[in-house]
């Protein structure tokens, strides 16, 4: 048991360490560009990573790690749930935006009248449902016509981005504002700052931390989770076992969208407060890295979300103390993803070269198990 846990950790940890090394080499090679540094300054990578860590380990650093991690964990869970069912939800961007906009709409409609204690739960609910609807559409299309979710979710990202823009510019825009902007909901927001003495900790953090065990429970302890995992690992066997695979596709895509929508909702309510024309997000794609780094395991998503969130929280310190721009964090994230993908490819190629007589697509997609027969 413990051996399997260690084995499953080896790959993502190697990806992270290698990415940090590659990032260090990048900093070293480009150190001449940092004001006040010599070209090829071997101290700079150490200083930069030192500053990054110092930016994380302070009290404010830890709270902002949690804040940055929140949408990554929720979104990562959304992508992971999809992966478990064999579905690749790249529509996180659109689903996130729908979650945000639905929450804005609820707050601007009833926030003044009802006060935060009623408006905010309703806004979260609306955001989750809007995300679920945005996930339902590609799920429904796949189940009824076979349209691949990768194509439809990417197309929906554009459609929903413009839907969100239209809402910001149209029905939700503030009267008399110089630019199209929605209401700043932090006015109403008192209840969201659960710890008054922190700078930024909001209730969404606890929603994300709570979602992890809930999704784990659904996937591994319920019959629905068994059906989702079966359909993902071997759709033919799922059909043979009497599972309704079309319904599962619709349900899983909706659940995936719901988590993405929730990510959009808590980000808007707790962090952004106000949207203006052109409001957009990269969480939909960052969440894919989070889920891949976690091998789609919900507990893993918690840690990979925290890791990427911490790197974001520490990056301002890296900028101010070492002069290394925070864009490095995006580069690191991309390198992690590359190493993960290289590893997947290596495994696929190795299996092909070994020429296993029976193809085992199920075991291949599930990835973490060896398919060597011990006969």
């Amino acid at each position, binding site marked *: 048991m413990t051996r399997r846990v260690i084995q499953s950790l080896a790959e993502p940890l190697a990806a992270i360490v290698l990415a940090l090394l590659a990032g260090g080499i990048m900093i070293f090679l480009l150190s001449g560009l940092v004001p006040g540094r010599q070209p090829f300054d071997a101290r700079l990578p150490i200083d930069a990573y030192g500053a990054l860590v110092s930016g994380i380990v302070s009290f404010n650093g830890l709270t902002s790690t949690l804040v940055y991690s929140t949408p990554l964990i929720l979104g990562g869970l959304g992508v992971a749930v999809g992966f478990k069912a064999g579905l690749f939800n790249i529509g996180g961007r659109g689903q996130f935006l729908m979650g945000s906009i639905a929450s804005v709409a609820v707050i601007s409609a009833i926030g003044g009248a009802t006060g935060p204690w009623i408006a905010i739960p309703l806004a979260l609910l609306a955001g989750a449902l809007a995300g679920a609807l945005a996930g339902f559409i590609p799920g429904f299309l796949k189940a009824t016509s076979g349209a691949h979710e990768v194509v439809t979710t990417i197309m929906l990202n554009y459609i929903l981005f413009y839907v969100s823009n239209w809402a910001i510019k149209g029905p939700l825009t503030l009267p008399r504002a110089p630019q199209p902007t929605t209401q700043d909901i932090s006015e109403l927001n008192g209840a969201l700052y659960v710890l008054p003495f922190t700078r930024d900790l909001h209730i969404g953090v606890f929603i994300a931390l709570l979602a992890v065990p809930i999704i784990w429970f659904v996937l591994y302890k319920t019959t629905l989770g*068994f059906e989702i995992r079966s359909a993902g*690992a*071997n759709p033919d066997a*799922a059909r043979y076992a009497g599972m309704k695979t079309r319904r599962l596709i619709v349900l899983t895509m909706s659940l995936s969208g719901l988590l993405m929508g929730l990510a959009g909702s808590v980000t808007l309510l707790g962090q952004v407060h106000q949207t203006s024309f052109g409001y957009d997000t990269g969480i939909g794609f960052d969440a894919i890295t989070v889920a891949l780094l976690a091998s789609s395991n919900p507990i893993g998503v918690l840690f990979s979300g925290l890791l990427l969130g911490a790197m974001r929280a520490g990056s301002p310190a890296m900028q101010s103390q070492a002069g290394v721009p925070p864009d490095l964090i995006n580069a690191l994230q991309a390198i992690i993803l590359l190493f993960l993908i290289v590893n997947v490819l290596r495994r696929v190629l190795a299996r092909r070269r070994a020429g296993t007589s*029976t193809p*085992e697509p199920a075991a291949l997609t599930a990835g973490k*198990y060896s398919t060597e027969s011990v006969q």
Partner: protein
Amino acid sequence: MTQDGPGVPALEMRGMTKRYPGVVANDHIDLDVCPGEIHALLGENGAGKTTLMNVLYGLARPDEGQILLDGKPVQIASPADAIARGISMVHQHFMLVPVLSVADNVILGAETMANPIFLDRKQARRKIADLAGRFGFELDPEAKVASLSVGQQQRVEILKALYREARILVLDEPTAVLTPQETDEIFGLLRRLAADGRSIVFISHKLYEVLEIADRITVIRRGKVIGERRPAETTEEELAELMVGRAVELTADRGESHVGRPMLQIEGLRVADARHREIIPGLSLEVRAGEIVGVAGVAGNGQDELVESIVGMRTPQGGKVTLDGRDVTGLSPRKMNMAEVAYVPGDRHRFGLILAFPVYDNLVLTGYYSPPYSRSFLRDDQAIKSSAERQVEKFDIRTPSINVPAATLSGGNQQKVIVAREFDRPLKLLVLDQPTRGLDVGSIEFIHRQIIAKRDAGAAVLLVSAELDEVMEMSDRIAVMYRGRIVAEMDGRTADKSEVGLYMATGGREAAEATA
């Protein structure tokens, strides 16, 4: 060199060793084949026969050992290398292009050019006609491969090998998909090839076949050579014991059947494929309680469609399926499962198992949704695991634990997982599609006993198999399926194998003529 072999062996393998992580697939195997000799390689699935031949054919690198051709050591790095040295392999799954003609398939990959642009088809045709005439192939070089029977396709594969000047021909389980008549034909062909001085390695696990065709038999077990025999000096019983490592019951004793009420009734079943071609144009069949009905037929005559229509994996276009008096036509797999129907699918990796999932999850794959395995949407892991432990014990599933992925089990034990899951409850009907395909003798013996036990408990059994031996051995009644119809029904105790084979091959046309 063998005692009475004429001179140097055409092929000699010395001390071949091939290790895979955790297993030694070949452990210092010695094998030699003389010119003009048919040498049978006998062993169970997983004994290492295929690995040895893959090493010979350049598909795998040996860790130790030496290959000698005509007494000279050689290195074989790739299949192209092997072919260039006169070694050809006929795989179990044919490597043919269905839309091309026989002649085009034969020259594919070994084309001779008339000029830099065009193929020299004329010369190729001449050579094919010459070979076909010399060895009596009876193949039309212009026929499309798609229109040929399985036996004919296999002859195309052999023709391909001869066209490439093969001196050493390896056939991997060549009779697995053939009717008895086709088997006789292929044996005749192999004898003519041997008489021509070619060496043949014949891989099989069928005892009576190797006794019939081989000049020499080498038995391997768990990667080691266990013994070498000549057909005249040995018996099926001895070979079986060498192969398995213990005395084996070669024929299942199925005892008397006590036939009861009609359990499964199929009337006028019509099934079409995705392109609206009618695969089953109207089929009727009855299976009674306490009876095993075996469906014999060459693969691809609608058996899969028949089975899938019964268990709900496929919607029939017409007709009626009745289970114990209740109309169950077109019910879903789940509803059929709840109606006490067990289904063992033909493709266990595609349908029967989720290989990445642990054994205990696979044991509840079809029953997970109801008590005791779950209660109102929640899985009861305790119940699932304790039931898994019990079934592993009861069905003799050899696994280090119930927690390992099903992928790590051997084929026989994977099939036992499916059998345990499907059989371990009260049943009205068992629908079994090739339940022992590719399994070792021990597992086959075990699964056959389980099927008979279910029959004796009063269940109806529909057994579909492309292995005629299995149908002959297990069935109380035999139905022969040909082009989507049942063309003959016979009593399982009195049926004659060659008569069944004739119905399988011709649908009864010639059988009718023969009796007329």
